[in-house]
Every structure is written in structure tokens, then in C-alpha cells.
């Protein structure tokens, strides 16, 4: 065997190895990106669920606390703003505001003992607080996933593959309101 042939084989072998590495890294990135998308879909499901719950809760509270109409209007307005918001940043902002108004509505409910004893209201309250928890947990899962994905596309050497394949960093879902960053409130 001549020297040129050996060098040729080595070069071809190296090229194959690099090609394999490229393929595996690319596929890994696609997988991570899909996980980010899936995590976002989870948040979306829970946000929609909260939007669906709000009219029911407002109706139930209205039956007992008629003269709090100002708060009801704010809730309805914040809800429609959140429904129409699009994009991670805008949605996070609108949902943060909605959470603030909702917690005010639930605080009002505390002042009406009859309402607090209503089975229907109690069931709705558990659904709402659980949905708030689910939003918080899906946001947590989404942000963790985005962190892993973003780290991966910024690190050497996988950033080369990310650059060629057109992978871009995703936004974190952060709530603006500091009070909202605290624990989701849990009530029995």
C-alpha cells in the first residue's frame, strides 16, 4: 500500500466521522427544539383553560357581590387582552396582568361568607388555583427546556451546527409582576 492511499483512507474516515457528528448534533438540536415547542404548547393549554374558567367565576361571584362591578370589568378587560396577545413577551405581560386582577377578584370573594360556602364556587376556586399552579409549573418546565436548548446552541462546538442549521435562541417566559413570581397561592 502506498502512502497516498493510507492518507486518503484516513481523510475519508475523518470526513465520515465529522459527518456523523454533524448529523447527530443536528438531530439532537431538532429534538431539543421540538421539546421547547411542546413545553410552550403545554403553557398555552393551561392559559386557554384559565381563559375558559374566568367567565364562570365572574358569573358566580356576581350573584353574591353585585356592587363590585368595577372589578368584574377589569377582569373581563384583562382577559380579552390576554386572549388577543400574541408572541412570548406580549403574552407573558398580558397574562401577568390578568393574574393580578384575578387575585383581586378572589380577595373580594373572601368577604362574602355565603359565596365561600357555595359548592359551585369552591369547585371553581380549586380549578382556578390548580390552573394557576399548572401555568406556573408549565412555565417552569418551559424555561428549563429553553435554558438547556439555548445553552446547547451557544456552546462550542454545537454552535457551529446551530449556525448552519439556522437554530435561534428561544425567549424565556418571565412574568413582569414581582408578586406573581412568588408561589402560586393555594387555598382549601
Amino acid at each position: 500500500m502506498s502512502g497516498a492511499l493510507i492518507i486518503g483512507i484516513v481523510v475519508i474516515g475523518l470526513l465520515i466521522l465529522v459527518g456523523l457528528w454533524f448529523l447527530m448534533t443536528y438531530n439532537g438540536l431538532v429534538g431539543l427544539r421540538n421539546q421547547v415547542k411542546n413545553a410552550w404548547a403545554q403553557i398555552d393549554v393551561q392559559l386557554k383553560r384559565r381563559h375558559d374558567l374566568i367567565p364562570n367565576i365572574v358569573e358566580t361571584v356576581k350573584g353574591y357581590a353585585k356592587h363590585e362591578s368595577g372589578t368584574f370589568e377589569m377582569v373581563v378587560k384583562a382577559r380579552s387582552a390576554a386572549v388577543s396577545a400574541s408572541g412570548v413577551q406580549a403574552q407573558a405581560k398580558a397574562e401577568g396582568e390578568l393574574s393580578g386582577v384575578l387575585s383581586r377578584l378572589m380577595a373580594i370573594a373572601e368577604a362574602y361568607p355565603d359565596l365561600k360556602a357555595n359548592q359551585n364556587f369552591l369547585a371553581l376556586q380549586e380549578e382556578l388555583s390548580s390552573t394557576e399552579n399548572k401555568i406556573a409549573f408549565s412555565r417552569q418546565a418551559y424555561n428549563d427546556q429553553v435554558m438547556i436548548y439555548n445553552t446547547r446552541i451557544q456552546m462550542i462546538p454545537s454552535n457551529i451546527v446551530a449556525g448552519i442549521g439556522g437554530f435561534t435562541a428561544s425567549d424565556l417566559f418571565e412574568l413582569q409582576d414581582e408578586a406573581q413570581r412568588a408561589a402560586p397561592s393555594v387555598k382549601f
Partner: protein
Amino acid sequence: MWQAIHRNKIKSVILIIVMGMLLVVLGASIGGAIANGTPEGILGGVMISGIIWFIMTVIALTQGKNILLALSGAREVSHDDAPQLYNIVEEMRIAAALPATPKVFILESRAPNAFAVGTPMNAAVAVTTGLLSILSRDELQGVVAHEIGHIKNQDSRFMTIAGIMLGVIVILADIFTRSMFYGGMGRRRSGGSKDSGQLQLILFVVAIVLAILAPLLANLLYLACSRSREYLADASAAIFTRYPEGLASALEKISSSTLPLESANRITAPMYIINPLNKASGTNVVSLFSTHPPTEERIRILRTMASGAGLDAYDNAYGKVKGGRIIGSSDLRSAEVLELRGIKPPQADVNRPKQTREANDILLRLNKFNFVNCACGLRIKVPPAFAAPSVTCPRCGVKHDL
């Protein structure tokens, strides 16, 4: 997180291989001892033990979940039966990013306990009514997070495979020692040459020693693995909830209960969050034969987690309480710092009578009781056998149609 699970997987595969080798050697020496030390005998022993193991594993992996659930006497509940429990399971499924929501089961027992079985795609979480009646929502969330941690870390499947191997080893050793005791069947047949007789004697001694040691060794391996997986599930619970105190105070409450869980036995014991069989003794001494690490230690580790809720925080806390590491430093290089949840506003104390009533209501709903809410605030629970078309409220006398 993922590296830790990967590392755990490697450890598990090694353990399975070691147990498999124990099984093969035991089968070979028993076969050899019985059949005069001929190669056919050795091969036959290996093959028979292998076939027994294979059949049992196939059954366990396809039907194991249902068998365990049936053994424990658990009953499935829907969202409408137990809204809060179901919601908590769903919350933790989201936090753990499991591909499917586990089925939720309830066990009728005053002993507080919980367990999980199945794979991430097809799992089940079961809690007792006693657990529902003594824990606050946050504590229940911690317990469910621990169980979801087991599912996420694939503990149930692994422990099933390892448990079956252990079972086969015990059975083989048992059959051999019994047959020796009653018949000495190997010896009677030894009429061949002096050489093969000697070989058989050696194999015989080896088989006896193995028959005594193998079950013991396999059991120790199995239990060591079971304990380390409990720690990892605790760490996972902290990651999912970002609130280790919830699980810590739940463990405190569960371990202070001395009520026995009637439906638990030695086979199902390692599944539970706290060993249901250790209750009576009241001791928390960890030995080589414990399925679970001492609860006090688990609580102390969770409460020492000050820096965050991540795996590294759990590992550091483990180091402070016990010394050494549980997860392994090589996994923590890329560990992200996970913030703990903020200090929560003080919440209402657990209302045990009310929660006990609610837990029992879940069972009544499962038993097809009809719930009628009267305007006077009374809730009438009508049994399914009640035949009349209407029921009168015993407090205010209003008639309700059924």
C-alpha cells in the same frame, strides 16, 4: 438532571448484569450438581433458569402494573371523583414533563402512604385516604412529586426487572435446598466413574454455597438500589415543586403515623413512599436489609437544601447530612441553579376532620353514592340502593328529587 438519570441507568444495567450472572451461575451449578456434572446438565440448568426468568419478566413487564395495583386493592378515580388529587397529579406531570398523565388511584386505608408504578408513557399513582386526610395541599404535592419522580426516573420498570430476578434466584435456591433435604436426588444417581463423581461433589458444594449466598447477595444489591432511588426521587420532587419543605413535612407526618397498611406485603413494600411494614417497630435504623433510607435523614436532607432546588443543592445537602455524594459530582457540571419558591404566606392549618370526610366522600362517589346539596348547606349522600324517587333533607325538610 438528565445526566443523573443516565448515570443511574448505567448503574442499573450493571446491577441487572451482576444479578443475571448470579442467576446463570446458580442455574449452572444446580444443573451440574443434579446431573452428574455433565456439560448437558450444566447447560440444562442455565437454560431452565433462563426460561423461568424470561417468562416471569415478560409477564411482569406487560401485566406488572395491573397485578401490583390489584394486589394493593387500589381503585381508579377520575377528575370528578377527586378534583384536588387529580389536579395535583396533573400539576406534577406538567412540572416533570411526562408525556402522559398517570392514572390516579385511591387506597382505602387510614395509614398514610402512596406509591407509583409504570413507565412514563403508562403510569399510575396511588395514595391512601389516610394520606389525603392528614396532609395540606403543598405536602400532598410533595408526595405526588416524589412518586412522579419514581416514574420519571424509570424506577418502577427497573425495580420490576430486578425484583423478578431476585425472585427467580430465591425460588431456584429454594427448590434446590429442599430437593437436597428431602431426596438427595443428585447423589443417588452418581454411579459413573470416580472422576465425574469428584467433579459432581465439587459442583455440589458450590451449588449449596451458592444456594445459600445468592439470594442474600441479590437481595442486598436490590435493596441498596432501592434506597438510592428513594434519595433520587426526593431530589426530583424538590426540582418539580421547587419547594422541598412540602415533601419534608409530609414525610414527617407520614412517619409519625403508626397505623398499619393492611394491604401491603413484602412484594409491594419497596413501591411505597415510606416502608409500610416498618411502622410497628418505630425504629428508623437503616440496615443492609432496609428498602428505604431512614426517614429522618431524608427529611433533614430536604430541609438542608438552602441554596436552591436543583440536583446540586440536594447533593450538597446530602453531603452535609451524611457525608459523601448520592448523585455524583460529574453530573453536576452543567447543573443549572434552580431557585426555590418564595416563602409562602401562612396557610390555614390542616383540617383533619374535614379532609377525612372529603377523602371518604371520594370512596362514596366511587361506590355510586348520589350527592345532593341542599340549600340549607347540608350535603345528603344517597346510597345507590335507595329506591325512593325523592329524599327529604333531615335538617330543613325540603324534598329533593333524585
